[in-house]
């Protein structure tokens, strides 16, 4: 299991390669990467500023990962979340799950992202030419997280 909260960018292929290194029992790699998206009507987003709660963030991600291992037959996973100032189209988050078969890896990856969005202490602030504003939590994210009934 690899969990990292970092300012540096990540390389999806490299993280996947490292997770699978020296093993031959893996039949499926599922990756999800989240990018900085300009969702403003004026298309004037310059960057996102990602704040987090150092110490608790890592614990929350470890707990979410442990929960995924409990529920799905997966062999390993990685979660990387960037913090600090992230420009338009930059990578924000990466989840990689590896397993023998795809179904387990797909579901676990989706669960990890749904839970991360509602349980891990990160906050996004949008920086536009006009100023700054905090992103509001979305009810749809809460519903996505609750559907797992865990």
């Amino acid at each position, binding site marked *: 299991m690899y969990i990292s909260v970092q300012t540096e960018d990540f390389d999806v292929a490299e993280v996947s390669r490292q997770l699978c290194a020296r093993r031959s029992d893996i039949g499926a790699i599922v990756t999800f990467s989240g990018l900085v998206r300009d969702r403003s009507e004026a298309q004037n987003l310059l960057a996102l500023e990602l704040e987090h709660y150092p110490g608790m963030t890592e614990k929350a991600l470890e707990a979410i990962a442990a929960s995924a291992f409990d529920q799905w037959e997966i062999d390993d996973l990685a979660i990387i979340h960037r913090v600090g100032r992230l420009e338009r189209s930059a990578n924000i988050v990466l989840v990689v799950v590896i397993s023998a078969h795809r179904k387990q890896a797909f579901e676990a990856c989706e669960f990890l992202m749904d839970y*991360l969005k509602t349980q891990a202490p990160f906050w996004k602030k949008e920086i536009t030419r006009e100023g700054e504003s905090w992103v509001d939590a979305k009810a749809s994210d809460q519903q996505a997280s609750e559907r797992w009934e865990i």
Partner: protein
Amino acid sequence: MARLLYFASLREKVNSEQEQLELPQDVIRVDQLKGLLARRGGSWGEAFTASSALLVSVNQQMANDQSSIQNTDEIAFFPPVTGG
């Protein structure tokens, strides 16, 4: 002394990142601490009203209004999270 932390929009609203606070003897639950902070008035009063959607953690574990707190705890308040 309890260590109190504030994050994101709440940190900006109350203009404080963290503080050390001696909890009075009658403050043993999160909701009582929120009441204490609300009585500071001004932006604290607005931020810690009973209806606000603030989340709380105690010693870096998600908690709620009924959670027990004591003077050695690290207690953090923050808005709903928006990572990912």
